[in-house]
């Protein structure tokens, strides 16, 4: 028998177990093995004292499903656990999660530094809508790390970006940009929808707030809209006077200081108490439940998404109809080294490629593939394609398209988990049609 003393190891649950169990205890829910759907608007108070205590945040619990709901709460805890976060707040969509994050952080007169390579809807929020609330933004190209530093102003309250830009696949140097943000006393907010916590946990690389469109890979089934913001819990809101709504007494809750009372969960508490109360983009319990079904198989699906994507990168890179391919797994990707560091479990399933023949060829390709679905979503278990310049980013003018790194020949491919040979065969049909664009358009 060995004399070697057994090393102490924390015995907390690992990723795959948390995907199935976190946030839920059956014995507290009539033994129901599946998470119940609490399809209700409101919750009984025991008495007047209990009601007052809930409204004053004296005790935990549910009041009204706009603010919180037990089914949604399971989803929030599950995602917080998977991300390594302290707390999470689910919303009706990814866009509402971004909006709520910004409105929790900023006031009129504030400024944000934002990566230029974002989903088109997010670009429009930062470029056109937030200025209407008095919040201005400076866009910086994701690879221009020094540019983020230069863009910070006295009234800058945070940096925002997608870890892997949509749709060009440029990667933000998250650790360095986090350091820039923290040196300036501001948080880094990262939209990690493309990665899911299976591929990357942004808190481990310096992010302070992580945002997901749960509609995408987290759910996977493409049936339900949902978003979430997750708090890392490390950011010290009291280190400077930039965030008075976090640190000073808040009239909306009897002079409560969120940072003093809730520390590592202060941001989420404020986003819920103020944001859900006043804006109300709540997630329905049915959609929360639907997303939970997807998360149960997250790691299994992501492995297949990534292996299929790597196969497609090889196939497209060698195809005569393809001008260029962009995916972090490609050895010639400018951010390949950074991708290996930040995405060790796989590089995701979003591929951008240029089709020879430009816009007409792209249109012909999209119109002729049969298995791949032409639609405005990503991260479905099914393979999806779109031509961004005429679809997701069509509301941008020519200059903005160029700044966002978009070209007219670009096709955005979200690789599904079908049999890889079937996806390739389908693409052959599309490419054949693309080589005869005039004929196709006359059909």
């Amino acid at each position, binding site marked *: 028998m060995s004399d070697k003393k057994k090393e102490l190891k*924390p015995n907390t649950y690992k990723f795959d177990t948390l995907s199935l169990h976190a946030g839920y205890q059956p014995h507290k829910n009539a033994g129901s093995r599946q998470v119940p759907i609490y399809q209700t608007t409101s919750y009984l108070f025991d008495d007047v004292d209990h009601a007052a205590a809930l409204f*004053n945040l004296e005790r935990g619990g549910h009041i009204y499903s706009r603010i919180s709901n037990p089914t949604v709460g399971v989803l929030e805890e599950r995602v917080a656990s998977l991300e*390594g976060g302290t707390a999470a707040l689910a919303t009706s969509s990814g866009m509402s999660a971004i909006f709520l994050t910004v409105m929790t952080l900023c006031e009129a007169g504030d400024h944000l530094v934002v990566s230029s390579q974002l989903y088109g809807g997010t670009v429009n929020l930062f470029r056109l809508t937030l200025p209407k609330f008095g919040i201005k933004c400076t866009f910086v190209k994701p690879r221009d790390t020094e540019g983020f530093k230069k863009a910070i102003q006295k009234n800058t309250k945070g940096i925002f970006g997608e870890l892997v830009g949509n749709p060009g696949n440029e990667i933000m140097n998250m650790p360095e940009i986090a350091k820039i943000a923290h040196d300036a006393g501001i948080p880094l907010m990262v939209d990690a929808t493309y990665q899911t916590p299976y591929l990357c946990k942004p808190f481990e690389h310096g992010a302070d707030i992580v945002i997901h469109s749960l509609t995408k890979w987290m759910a996977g089934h493409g049936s339900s809209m949902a978003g979430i913001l997750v708090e890392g819990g490390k950011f010290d809101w009291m280190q400077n006077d930039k965030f008075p709504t976090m640190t000073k007494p808040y009239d909306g809750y009897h002079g409560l200081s969120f940072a003093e009372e809730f*520390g*590592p969960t202060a941001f989420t508490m404020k986003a819920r108490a103020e944001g859900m109360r006043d804006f109300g983009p709540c997630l329905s319990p049915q959609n929360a439940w639907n997303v939970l079904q997807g998360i149960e198989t997250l790691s299994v699906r992501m492995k297949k998404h990534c292996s299929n994507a790597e196969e497609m990168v090889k196939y497209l890179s060698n195809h005569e109809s393809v001008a260029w391919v962009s995916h972090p797994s490609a050895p010639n990707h400018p951010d390949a080294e950074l991708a290996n560091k930040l995405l060790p479990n796989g590089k995701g399933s979003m591929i951008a490629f240029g089709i020879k023949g430009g816009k007409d060829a792209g249109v012909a390709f999209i119109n002729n593939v049969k298995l791949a679905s032409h639609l405005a979503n990503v991260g479905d278990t099914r393979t999806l394609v779109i031509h961004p310049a005429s679809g997701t980013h069509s509301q941008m003018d020519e200059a903005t398209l160029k700044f966002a790194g978009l070209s007219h020949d670009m096709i955005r491919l979200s690789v599904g988990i079908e049999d890889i040979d079937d996806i390739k065969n389908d693409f052959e049909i599309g490419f054949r049609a693309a080589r005869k664009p005039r004929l196709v358009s006359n059909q």
Partner: protein
Amino acid sequence: MKFKVNGHEVFASTGGRPFDKKKPLIIFVHGSGLTHMTWVLQTRYFAFHGYNSLAVDLPGHGLSSGKSLKSIEEMADWVSDVIDAVGHKEASLVGHSQGCLVTVECTSRYPNKIKTLSLMGGAGAIPMNPELLSLAENNDPKAVDLMMDWAHGPAGHFGGHPVPGLYHINTGTMLAKSRTIQNTLGVDFRACNNYKNGFEAAKKIKCPTLSILATDDKMCPIKEGKKLASLIDGSQVDIIDNCGHMMLLEEADRVLTVLKKFITTNYPPLSS
């Protein structure tokens, strides 16, 4: 609120209500390496119901300045100094884990000042696992990870936080890592390990005392809590099933209900 004790600034959460000298005082003392925030689901209730609720950050912890105190006896004297510093003559004490050692020692030393004592996850002694102690003293974050694992029962490990959206283990981890581990957790663990007077101190306590214990507590096993309670005259004991050492968060409502009944009965609030 902030005030000074022995020349150092002390932070104490007042539960969201202004401090009012006319109201009776309850002081909440946190466990090793933690902060006032562990009490958020108890302090706010008392603050809104006729008490001055002070969840202190021990010196060198959370938002309090100074260096961590090196012995339970020093911490006990410091709690007494806090009562003086805020202009009160007496207080009700509530402690969790290491905070139980501190409040037991304080109550035995200052019997005329302490009107009730509430202990959560308490014991008369908390000898530390030598490897855990060494990790904490060497600033190894694994010490926090181990503590969070052992300190949480099913609610902590699976989830089901009473506040929607919060995740127990990660929140506790961030609290414990908010200051340098060796200067907080390391010093606290050593102080717990060195403290030997708990059982003798308990025998001297005459004020109403409540012990809330949990069946799945691995940090301070329930038999140790019962042993301590048995040494205090007339001590009440409440046992929570299927719960770990962090009962003040894992079963916050149950803890609040029991605590509310005990304190309001034995140390009534200022009626409005």
